[in-house]
């Protein structure tokens, strides 16, 4: 069945690769060196050729179970063993286990007399024997050009070298041949003519007294490979090459939001903070609290139990820890808990690229979720602005691919806001906070604004940025006719507003009382009028009743009189 499925997949047979195990090199070469073919590694003296090839052998033996033969034309076996012991490679042990074979080829012109035609069969037999004795899959010839100084007959040597490389291919071993860099050609003896499958050039460049090691793949037949110059680092772990540019912008993105550690700032950022995996730039003039913002961000990250690396290029870790104590954050406990790692180095320690390699390595090792670089502006001392920018682009690319949030601080030298001062990285970052001094009324205050924050609603307001014993806070500034009010001007404004308010309340209550009083007066008036009306009514009523009574009485009296008259008249009549 598997055979059938194999038949169905029309995969072209590709060049098989032999992984070097060297950090980064396998990425650039898309899997390693061409298996079963010779590779030429060339470079000037001290560029790391021997180390690279030796690491290839050692890692092959240790990691890929491919024994290797190292044939040294320069250094003696004992010297080699000693030289790489500092990298933690125990060549003696590997030799004992039969995984590595060191062979020092000694050739000295003064001891040798050439008496006619010869060939290099001795070398072939020697190498063949060494390969067969341990079943080697890898071979290094370091530096075979030394033969040219030991032997006179160049014609023979060239022919023999050609034969040697052909023979190595036949043997099916993956070989590295090192060569010293020549004046006009890659190697002094033009070895590149013979080794045509893969050529790697190592360089060691010094600019502004700072050295950078660079690696470039000049050619690699039948394979994709990175074509740039890649910086590499030699340290206690051997060689690390940095695959610098990811050409594709296809890093995963997160919608998760993380707090900046300053609630008021989160509020300005739509209430939730930054996106995870985004890049944040905090720029500002000296003494505006950039490091404090960075420290708060680090602190918040550690409080979420997420690891954080702090790269400081200006202050020592102890200094930062002490200084941050004064605004109420304790970074030491995070360091003790293993959540925070602080790395302080002067930018001039090594070149820009080396910094990048170093940062890369530390990030790969510590696996943080948050990275802080404070400040990136200091890196300009070891490179031009464009170099710093290209380094940061690569760093941001790398961090985004790893979903690591990064915060840079940048010192802007101009007090006048200049968007171009920030190493031109402002276009690269996702969020940009600007902290600037606002100077008025004989004092200096800090103002903060969000210049940009991609993909989220954010405040357009300038906030006053205050640093207190308890931490950082953002306060609304007052915008008055004289402009932005901050600091004591703001406080004065606030006080005057309070006074105004009190006065207003007071006035209000006085008016109330007045109204009350007026009402009372009016009410009193109404009452007295009522009384008056009643008394008038009473009087009117009284006269009316009197009138009635009078009328009644008069009526009564009239009736009485009538009656009285009637009776008088009757009596008169009788008497008559």
């Amino acid at each position: 069945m598997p055979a059938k499925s194999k038949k169905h997949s029309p995969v072209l047979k590709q060049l098989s690769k032999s992984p070097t195990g060297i950090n980064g090199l396998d990425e650039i070469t898309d899997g390693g060196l061409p298996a079963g073919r010779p590779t030429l590694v060339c470079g000037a003296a001290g560029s790391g050729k021997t180390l690279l090839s030796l690491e290839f052998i050692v890692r092959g033996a240790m990691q890929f179970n491919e024994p290797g033969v190292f044939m040294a034309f320069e250094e003696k076996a004992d010297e080699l063993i000693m030289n790489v012991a500092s990298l933690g490679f125990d060549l003696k042990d590997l030799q004992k286990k039969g995984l590595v074979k060191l062979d020092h080829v000694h050739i000295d012109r003064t001891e040798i007399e050439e008496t006619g035609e010869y060939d290099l069969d001795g070398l072939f037999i020697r190498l063949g024997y060494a390969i067969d004795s341990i079943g080697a899959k890898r071979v290094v010839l370091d530096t075979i050009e030394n033969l040219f100084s030991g032997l006179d007959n160049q014609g023979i040597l060239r022919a023999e070298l050609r034969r040697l490389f052909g023979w190595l291919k036949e043997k099916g071993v993956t070989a590295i041949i090192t060569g010293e860099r020549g004046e006009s050609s890659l190697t002094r003896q033009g070895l590149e003519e013979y080794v045509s499958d893969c050529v790697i050039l190592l360089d060691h460049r010094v600019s502004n007294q700072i050295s950078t090691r660079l690696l470039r793949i000049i050619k690699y037949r039948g394979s994709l490979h990175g074509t740039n110059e890649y910086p590499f680092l030699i340290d206690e772990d051997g060689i690390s090459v940095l695959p610098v540019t990811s050409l594709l912008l296809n890093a995963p993105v997160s919608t998760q939001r993380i707090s900046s550690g300053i609630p008021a700032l989160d509020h300005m950022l739509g209430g939730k903070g930054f996106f995870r995996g985004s890049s944040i730039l905090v720029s500002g003039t000296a003494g505006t609290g950039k490091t404090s913002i960075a420290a708060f961000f680090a602190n918040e990250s550690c409080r979420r139990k997420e690891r954080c690396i702090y790269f400081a290029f200006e202050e020592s870790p102890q200094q930062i820890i002490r200084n941050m104590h004064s605004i109420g954050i304790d970074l030491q406990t995070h360091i003790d808990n293993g959540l925070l790692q602080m790395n302080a180095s002067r930018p001039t320690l090594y070149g820009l690229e080396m910094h990048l390699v170093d940062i890369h390595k530390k990030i790969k090792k510590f696996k943080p979720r948050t990275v802080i670089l404070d400040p990136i502006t200091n890196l300009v001392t070891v490179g031009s602005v464009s170099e710093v920018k290209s380094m940061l682009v690569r760093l941001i690319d790398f961090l985004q691919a790893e979903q690591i949030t990064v915060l840079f601080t940048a010192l802007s030298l101009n007090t006048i806001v200049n968007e171009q001062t920030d190493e031109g990285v402002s276009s690269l970052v996702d969020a940009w906070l600007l902290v600037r001094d606002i100077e008025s009324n004989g004092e200096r205050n800090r103002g903060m604004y969000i210049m940009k924050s991609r993909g989220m609603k954010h405040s357009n307001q300038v906030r006053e940025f205050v640093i207190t014993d308890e931490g950082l806070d953002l306060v609304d500034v007052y915008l008055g006719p004289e402009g932005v009010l901050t600091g004591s001007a703001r406080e004065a404004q606030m006080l005057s507003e309070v006074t105004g308010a009190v006065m207003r309340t007071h006035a209000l209550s006085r008016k109330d009382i007045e109204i009350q009083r007026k009402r009372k007066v009016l009410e009193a008036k109404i009452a007295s009028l009522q009384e008056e009306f009643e008394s008038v009514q009473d009087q009117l009523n009284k006269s009316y009743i009197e009138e009635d009574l009078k009328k009644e009485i008069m009526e009564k009296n009239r009736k009485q009189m009538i009656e009285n008259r009637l009776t008088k008249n009757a009596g008169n009549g009788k008497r008559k």
Partner: protein
Amino acid sequence: MKKKEEHADGTSNGTNEYVLHLFITGATPNSVRAVANIKQICEDHLKGNYQLEIIDVYQQQALAEKEQLVALPLLIRRQPLPERRLIGDMSDTEKVLKGLGFYLHGR
């Protein structure tokens, strides 16, 4: 002639001033020439005064590393000290003799 050859191939008898080891690779043209040339030179200049051992490196491959072999054929003058190394097919008699220090000793 025969006697001398035996002598050359035979064991050390303590009197040989010259102890020579010639490393060759089987029957390659260079090797064949080297063997013939060195024998001739020894016969001509070191009669009875040498011991020549011819070693085929193909037969003893481990020797290559031990003896620091690179270019072959190689003649090593073990005795008298210091050790001298001559490479090539020994066709340049002048150089071979010079390399063996013969003129120095001869005079």
